[in-house]
């Protein structure tokens, strides 16, 4: 009868749906979740991908670990998201591209931070920007006025430049770079609300490359990797190079940390150790200062 076939079809579809959604025998054991700073995101995702390629199962990483496949999920969201997620327990390892705030330290309680590299927050623009040819450095005050929105046109910054509108690019409030800029340079002054907020370092890079009138603050590693498409400006005479980050003369230097709550479990520790050893090559290749130097 026609009705019977239709009923069978319904039953089959239901079974298929259930089959699709059935739980695989995959426990949380052996699954690492890493999340946070978008500055660290490319480095850590590549390191994670390499780690998963090199050791297919955890018992190859260390003999006392079970034979479970190595699975690492890496996501962005900003440094503050990383800290909050470690607090909430939604990630095992947080990526934080700034120092922890006092409030965060007290909420976290016992925790471990691992320095995987250092980075400079560079004031940068496209190489085709009106001021790229003539301006080599900006003073701290100029930068503060710029990002507070008080300097609206290029002609106000340097007299000879055309009267074109300055487009400010920022990361959103949860980013490590924003916090560093705010704490070290801006202090009490707020970043202009007219600035375009971009969701990640990658988006910032893309926008800076495409828009010749834009100025923003971006990780110096990305500037050095941009093959000349971007130009960074010295801050108070100090250029955002890796040497200046190491010897401490560049003001907007920041640590790139991995954050773990309490004591890291064996899986997290293994991955962190990898990032601190073989993974440093990745950090270096992306333009940051490796931790060991």
């Amino acid at each position: 009868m026609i009705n019977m076939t239709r009923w069978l079809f319904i039953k089959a579809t239901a079974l298929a749906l259930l089959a699709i959604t059935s739980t695989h025998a995959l426990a949380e054991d052996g699954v690492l979740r890493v999340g946070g700073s978008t500055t660290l995101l490319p480095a850590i995702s590549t390191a994670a991908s390499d780690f998963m390629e090199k050791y297919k199962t955890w018992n190859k990483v260390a003999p006392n670990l079970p034979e479970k496949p190595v699975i690492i999920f890496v996501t962005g969201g900003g440094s503050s998201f990383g800290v909050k997620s470690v607090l909430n327990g939604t990630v095992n390892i947080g990526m934080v591209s700034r120092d922890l705030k006092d409030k965060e330290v007290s909420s976290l309680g016992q925790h471990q931070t691992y320095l995987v590299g250092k980075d400079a927050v560079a004031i940068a623009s496209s190489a085709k920007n009106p001021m790229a040819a003539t301006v080599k450095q900006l003073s701290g005050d100029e930068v503060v006025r710029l990002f507070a929105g008080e300097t609206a046109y290029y002609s106000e910054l340097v007299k000879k430049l055309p009267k074109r509108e300055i487009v400010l690019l920022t990361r959103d409030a949860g980013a490590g770079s924003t916090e560093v800029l705010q704490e070290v340079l801006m202090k009490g002054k707020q970043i202009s609300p007219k600035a375009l907020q971009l969701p990640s370092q990658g988006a910032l890079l893309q926008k800076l490359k495409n828009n010749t009138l834009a100025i923003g603050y971006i990780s110096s590693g990305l500037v050095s990797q941009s093959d000349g498409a971007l130009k960074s400006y010295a801050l108070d005479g100090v250029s955002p190079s890796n040497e200046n980050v190491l010897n401490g003369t560049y003001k907007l230097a920041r640590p790139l940390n991995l954050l773990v709550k309490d004591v890291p479990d064996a899986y997290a520790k293994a991955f962190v150790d990898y990032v601190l050893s073989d993974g440093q090559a990745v950090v270096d290749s992306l333009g940051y200062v490796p931790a060991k130097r």
Partner: protein
Amino acid sequence: MSKPQSPPSLSVAYLGDRFATVLVWLTGLLALALPLAILGFLAVRGMHVMCWEFLLSGPSGVPLGSAGGIGPAILGTLYLVGMGLAVALPLGVGGGIYLSEFAPCAFWVRLLEFAAECLGAIPAVIYGLFGYALLVVFLAMNISLLAGGLTLGMMMFPIILIGSRAALAAVPSLERESALALGVSRSWVARRILLPRAWPGIAASAVLAAGHAAGSAAPVMFTASTVFTVTNPAMTTPVMTLPTHLYNLVSEAVSFDHAYGTALVLVVGILLVNALSMLLRRRLPEHY
């Protein structure tokens, strides 16, 4: 409707009529051209990335996503929508059966339907907000297929409820009443008469809801999605999804070629799903 005769003279009304008709024709043609233009644009820019490797393999290259494919994203979306349907279908069809068979009076039916339609108006981003706060953090489900699937299920429920209610109510009462008059139970009527007649309508609304959910990034962004994964989806792991993958490719400027490809896959997929829904709806009159 017979075509009206236009007045012979060059009166103002005649000119006005002509002018307005031209305007309206222009908007009509614009409406025809817009979707084709958008689709064509995506197809032209995205066609060259299409190949089996793109559809089946995972993202690779540096930065991640500029090479390889979107296989895990397609899989993730399918799993999420499947899970959402597994939640929303029983709830929706059950609710529809209640509303059309067992509701004690018209007042209750109207009230409940009203409530469902109001609640169905909630924007998708609110489901994401709620899903993150309650499911991911408070119930500690973490960002996972489970949390995302439940969120999508809640989003699909009103559509399926209203659709199945309409489909069930559209079955002529003659069939119901003659069966009941012969003494069979209501569950027999529901099973053997109503559902077989109404299933195209129910399936159409389910498919529509699925298409809508598949394309929504807002509910899954904070409840289920991750940037990169190599494993098969499981209940407790996050998944890549097509809409969030597209958003990542664009906002991180990883690869615009792949972005076009992803957009094309997403749009074509949803179009096929909508076409299926339309086909199903067309099958309804057969049974009368």
